[in-house]
C-alpha cells in the first residue's frame, strides 16, 4: 500500500470509527472536548505509524487503545501536577476524584448507549442551533472543520471557533453525558431531530449560494437519522423523520435539470425518483405508525411526502388526503408556512380560487414578510386564475426575496412567461 493509499485508508477508518471512539472516551473522561482531543491524538499517531507498519487488522481497536494510553498519560500528568501543587502548599481546590478511571470495564459496555449520549450532548439546548449543527456534524458525522465550512459556505476559522466554544460551553455548564429520561426526553429528542432535519434541508434546498442542492449534506443527515433510528428504535418521530428524509431524498436526481435549474415536484420525471429510497421511506413510515401514539409532525410530513411518492403521475396525487394531513399538521404545529402549504394543497384539490383565499389571509403575516415562497405561490394561483399582470408582479417579488441564484432565475423565467401561456404550479412539499 502506498503512503497515499494509507492516508486514504486512515480517512476512511476515521469516518467509520471516530464517533464511537469519541463517545466511548467521553464516558471515561467526562469531557467531550478532551475526548475529541484524545481521539485526534490517536489519529495523528496512526498517520505517523501506519504508513510504516501498515494498517492494523482491527484499526478501530488500535485507535481506541492508543487514545486510551493518551488518556492515562493525561490523567497521570494531572495527578503529578496536583501533587506538586500540594507540595507547594497552594490552596486546595475542590477535590475531584483524580484516580485513573477503569478504562477496560468502561470499554466493555455497550457502545450504542455512548453514541446516543453523544447525540444528545451535541444537540444540547445550552448550545446555539448553529453550534449544535457544527458539533453534530463534527463528532457524529465525522466531518472535518473544513468540510463543515464548505457545506455551510462559512470561513473555516468561524466553524472551528464555533466548535471550540461549543465544547467549552458544555464543560462550563457541566452538561452531563447521559440520555435524558421522562418528560425531558421528548423535548431533548425534538432538539436532536431539528438539528438533523436542518442539515438535511440545507442540502436539499440550499438557502444561499449558487447550487440548488448540496447532496452530500443530505446524505450526512440521512446517515445521522438512520443511526439515531437504530439507537432509539422505539421513538416514532425518529422513524418519521427518517421516512421524510428518505422520501424527499428519493427525488434528488429529478429535481435539478441538466443545466442546474430546479425542477418543481409536479414537473419532475418520476422515473428518476430513487425507488430504493422510496421503499426505505415507506418502510420507516410504516414502522413509525406501528409504534403507535399520535402521529408527530415528522411522521405527518412523511405521510404527505409518501402521497406524492405513491402517485405514478401528478394527476394521480391524492390531494384531498394531503389537505387532511396538512390540517392535522397545522393543529399540531401551527405555523404560517404550514398554512401556505395547506393552501397549495387546497388549490390542487378544490381549485385555485379556494387556495388563493387562504393565501390572501397570509399576506399580512409578519413572519412571512421575507419568505419568497409566499409571493411565488400567490403568483402561481393568480396565473391559474388568468390574472397574469398580478401574477408577474408576485413572481418578480419572489425573485427579489430568494437568496438562491438558481431559484431566482426560475422565478424570473416564470415572471417573463406570464405574458405567454400557462405555467406549472408551485412546488408543494
Amino acid at each position, binding site marked *: 500500500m502506498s503512503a497515499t493509499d494509507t492516508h486514504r485508508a486512515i480517512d476512511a477508518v476515521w469516518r467509520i470509527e471516530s464517533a464511537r471512539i469519541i463517545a466511548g472516551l467521553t464516558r471515561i473522561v467526562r469531557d467531550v472536548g478532551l475526548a475529541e482531543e484524545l481521539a485526534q491524538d490517536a489519529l495523528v499517531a496512526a498517520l505517523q505509524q501506519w504508513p510504516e507498519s501498515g494498517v492494523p487488522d482491527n484499526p478501530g481497536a488500535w485507535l481506541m487503545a492508543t487514545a486510551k494510553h493518551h488518556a492515562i498519560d493525561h490523567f497521570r500528568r494531572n495527578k503529578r501536577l496536583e501533587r506538586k501543587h500540594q507540595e507547594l502548599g497552594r490552596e486546595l481546590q475542590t477535590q475531584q476524584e483524580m484516580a485513573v478511571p477503569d478504562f477496560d470495564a468502561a470499554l466493555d459496555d455497550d457502545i450504542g448507549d455512548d453514541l446516543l449520549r453523544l447525540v444528545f450532548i451535541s444537540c444540547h439546548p445550552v448550545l446555539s442551533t448553529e453550534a449544535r449543527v457544527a458539533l453534530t456534524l463534527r463528532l457524529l458525522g465525522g466531518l472535518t472543520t473544513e468540510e463543515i465550512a464548505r457545506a455551510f459556505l462559512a470561513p473555516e476559522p468561524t466553524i472551528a471557533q464555533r466548535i471550540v466554544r461549543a465544547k467549552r460551553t458544555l464543560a462550563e455548564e457541566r452538561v452531563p453525558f447521559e440520555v435524558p429520561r421522562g418528560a425531558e426526553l421528548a423535548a431533548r429528542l425534538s432538539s436532536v431531530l431539528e438539528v438533523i432535519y436542518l442539515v438535511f434541508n440545507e442540502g436539499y434546498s440550499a438557502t444561499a449560494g449558487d447550487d440548488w442542492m448540496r447532496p452530500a449534506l443530505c446524505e450526512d443527515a440521512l446517515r445521522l437519522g438512520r443511526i439515531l433510528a437504530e439507537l432509539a428504535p422505539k421513538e416514532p418521530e425518529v422513524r418519521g423523520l427518517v421516512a421524510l428524509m428518505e422520501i424527499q431524498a428519493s427525488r*434528488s436526481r429529478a429535481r435539478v435539470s441538466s443545466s442546474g*435549474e430546479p425542477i418543481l415536484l409536479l414537473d419532475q420525471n418520476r422515473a428518476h425518483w430513487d425507488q430504493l429510497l422510496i421503499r426505505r421511506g415507506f418502510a420507516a413510515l410504516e414502522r413509525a405508525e406501528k409504534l403507535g401514539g399520535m402521529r408527530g409532525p415528522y411522521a405527518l410530513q412523511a405521510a404527505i411526502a409518501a402521497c406524492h411518492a405513491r402517485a405514478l403521475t401528478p394527476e394521480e396525487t391524492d390531494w384531498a388526503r394531503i389537505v387532511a394531513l396538512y390540517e392535522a399538521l397545522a393543529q399540531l404545529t401551527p405555523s404560517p408556512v404550514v398554512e401556505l402549504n395547506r393552501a397549495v394543497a387546497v388549490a390542487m384539490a378544490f381549485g385555485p380560487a379556494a387556495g388563493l383565499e387562504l393565501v390572501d389571509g397570509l399576506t399580512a403575516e409578519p413572519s412571512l414578510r421575507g419568505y419568497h415562497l409566499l409571493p411565488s405561490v400567490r403568483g402561481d394561483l393568480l396565473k391559474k386564475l388568468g390574472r397574469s399582470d398580478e401574477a408577474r408582479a408576485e413572481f418578480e417579488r419572489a425573485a427579489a426575496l430568494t437568496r438562491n441564484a438558481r431559484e431566482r432565475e426560475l422565478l424570473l423565467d416564470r415572471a417573463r412567461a406570464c405574458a405567454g401561456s400557462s405555467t406549472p404550479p408551485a412546488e408543494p412539499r
Partner: protein
Amino acid sequence: MRFMMLVKHAENLSGPPPKELMDAMAKLSEEAVKAGTLVDSGGLAPTAMSTRVRLSRGQVAAIDGPFTEAKEVVGGYAVFELKSKAEAIEGALRFMELHKKHWPGWEGETEIRQVFGPEDFPPKA
C-alpha cells in the same frame, strides 16, 4: 455516494459457508445498518436457476443456466451509502478478512462499483 458491492466466487463450492462466517457476516451487516450505511443487500440464487437474454450477431436469444464456463459468478450484492470510495474499500477489506478467518481455502473477490447519484451529473453551466 452510493456503492454497489458485488461478491464473486467460484460456484460449486464444497459445501455451505461455515456457521462462524455466517454469524460474523450477520454481525458486520448489523453494524453497517446501525452506522446508517447499508441500504440494501441480497444473496443471489445459483446460476443453475438463472437465464441470460443475449443479443449477439443480430439474434436475441434466452439461454438457461448454469454457465459452467464462468470461473467466478456474482453470489451476492450489497448497496452502501458512504462518504468516499476509501470508505467502501475499508468495508470490503473487512468483509473479505472475515472470509479469510472463517473459511480456509475460499477464494473470491468483492468488486466495488459506484452508483451514480445527483452529484455525478454536474450542471452544464
